[in-house]
């Protein structure tokens, strides 16, 4: 874990009101994010995983104030201004903070304005923040396009002329235009084809090294997370249920939900057919969660206490935290390591190095 903290989130909540009745009064709330604690070190990749509806995207959006948080603190350690609470910052402070925090969205077809040329899309953050203008602006856009593996002449084209992978590269160029510290990556590769996904992941790792970026990597794909993340937080119904380094979380999980998630990953090896830990039922609704531990109705290890008391996220040792009454007692199964022996022969190694050198072409 990195020593220096970049982001410290405590008790972050985002509730969406449910209105009903004649006067449209609030009759309840969807507790999309309900008390999330996270800390992200500088230059690390922190992944947030969970099933759809667990609040991982809302968490990411609330951290950079794309959603107004209901409660909680988001401390961002600004290089010059020191620690600032994003959640309570006023407009002027936010304006200074925003260039340091950027986001890459999931859907590369919806996140680029189809009426703006690619050059304008990438230049927009630079123009708004009055960083550069004129010839310098054009040069910076050309440079950014080259950095993400596109060509400077692409600046005059419109987004529709590009494939999904190329559009995601444009989204990345826009996100790194202001040299940010933190990038929220909201499912950046899940809309891409398998062969293109690897290209974009490699680009992201490359940029992280070169530009000293910190990623908050939101994903539901555990194989991708295992590949890219330093630390992982598992979310369930608006709460973090387990945090640990990738190694700890994947190979010695402490929360039954993490175990269930790991067992459900389909292994790309027909000789290791897994029978996943059967998770029965569905994810409970965040508008009406169960009592006690939210996971108890689906948990194979549930005891009477689980439906009565809510377990707190607590230290298990070695920086690993879990929110389970029995985290110390249970011995849970980690991820199964899969490898395809047929692909590791030396004869293949030569062709590997060739193919890995090439980037995406038009």
């Amino acid at each position: 874990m990195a020593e220096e903290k970049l982001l410290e989130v405590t008790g972050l909540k985002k509730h969406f009101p449910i209105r009903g009745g004649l006067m449209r009064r609030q009759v309840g709330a969807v507790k999309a994010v309900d008390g999330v604690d996270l800390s992200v070190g500088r230059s690390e990749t922190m992944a947030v995983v969970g099933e759809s509806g667990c609040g991982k995207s809302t968490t990411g959006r609330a951290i950079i104030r794309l959603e107004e948080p209901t409660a909680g603190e988001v401390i961002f350690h600004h290089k010059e201004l020191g620690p600032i609470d994003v959640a309570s910052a006023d407009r002027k402070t936010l304006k200074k903070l925003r260039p340091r925090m950027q986001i890459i969205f999931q859907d590369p077809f919806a996140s680029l304005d189809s009426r703006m040329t690619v050059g304008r899309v990438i230049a927009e953050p630079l123009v708004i923040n009055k960083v550069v203008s004129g010839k310098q602006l054009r040069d910076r856009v050309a440079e950014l396009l080259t950095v993400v593996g596109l060509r400077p002449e692409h600046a005059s084209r419109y987004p529709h002329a590009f494939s999904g992978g190329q559009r995601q590269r444009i989204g990345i160029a826009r996100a790194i235009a202001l040299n940010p510290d933190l990038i929220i990556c909201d499912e950046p590769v899940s809309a891409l084809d398998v062969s293109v996904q690897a290209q974009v992941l490699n680009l992201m790792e490359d940029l992280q090294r070169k530009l000293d970026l910190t990623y908050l990597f939101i994903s539901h794909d555990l194989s991708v997370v295992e590949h890219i993340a330093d630390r992982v937080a598992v979310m369930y119904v608006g709460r973090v249920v387990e945090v640990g380094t990738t190694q700890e979380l994947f190979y010695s999980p402490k929360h039954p939900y993490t175990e269930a998630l790991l067992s459900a990953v389909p292994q790309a090896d027909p000789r290791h057919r897994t029978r996943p830990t059967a998770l029965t039922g569905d994810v409970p609704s965040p508008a009406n969660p169960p009592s006690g531990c939210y996971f108890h109705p689906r948990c194979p290890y549930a005891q009477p206490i689980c439906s009565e008391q809510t377990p707190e996220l607590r230290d298990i040792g070695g920086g690993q935290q879990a929110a389970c009454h029995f985290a110390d007692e249970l011995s849970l199964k980690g991820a199964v390591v899969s490898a395809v022996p047929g692909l590791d022969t030396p004869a293949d190694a030569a062709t590997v190095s060739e193919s890995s050198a090439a980037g995406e072409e038009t």
Partner: protein
Amino acid sequence: MLISEDNVLTVRDLQVEFSTPLGVVHALNGVNLTVPRSKVLGIVGESGCGKSVTARAILQILEPQATITKGQIVFHRPEDVKEEASQVLSEEGELSVAAAAVRSGDVEITKLDPHSVEMRAMRGAEIAMIFQEPMSSLNPLFTVGAQIEEAILLHQTKDEVEAHKRAVDMLRRVGMPNPEGVSASYPHQLSGGMRQRAMIAMALSCEPTVLIADEPTTALDVTTEAQILELMRRLEEDIGMSIIFITHSMGVVAQLCDEVAVMYLGRVVERASVDEIFHNPKHPYTRSLLRSIPRIGANRKAPLEVIKGSIPDPYTQPGGCPFHPRCPEFMAGTCDVIVPLETGVGTDHSVRCHLYPGSVPAHAAVASEEA
């Protein structure tokens, strides 16, 4: 070749074209496939490779702009079912004698009119399909039960009470909690996983010989995906039907399928048993695809192997082998000129690639020698 075995469906040299305002798109350029009886065939490939078009062509539910220009799709009807099927149809009294003759033994689907009684009788009853988006393929105005009953009333029985009983029973078999309640619910009241189960129940309600599942788990979470895969496995064992499982996920293929066909730009480039595909892949595309997926426990933090370039747009397809611009083993003068033929490489393993002997058509071989 895999044709000698007991197959339920054979697709030979299938070609499909789409006419669009921007030109003709060759969606399928000679697809060869065989679907083994009571087994799961996986069709894998990236977007635009023609996996869904193949599935739709088998059921003759292609979009109006699409036409099958060449090739054959033959459905080999199992012996015992023949009797039963013709019986139900004679009750309908709509079929001509000629049509009844078609129904015994092999049926060439490509010769049938998409709107004909024969084709309609086959859809749902003998070949059923599950679509990717369970929300958009269920009708929001009818209860789940009513939609399953519709299929049963159309193909199996005229008795509404009996149809309802079968629908509820079907929902129970796909592992739905409280099947009575679910059958009275509307699609919006169900979660994604439950909707997909309802779709599966509908598809299975007439006990089809072949089930085509077009990315049924892509829109679902891993945990729900695992449940659906488990269900498919159990149903395949219980009912003994054949499944064509279309997906882009290599993990899902490895977990579920018996045989695999890898597609690229409208062609099947490699087909073999699942073990061969994963442990002895022959086509450079299959190999690259397997290397480019992140695997748990392998090469953490090291760069992933990538396939250079991206899938070409549908209007400008490369000549020769469609994969040659991205292929790490590209051979100039061969790969960019001659379309490779399907050749056998070991038992039940065939590949379309010039790295293996027999890929060059006879006339092209002569021509290249003269040059």
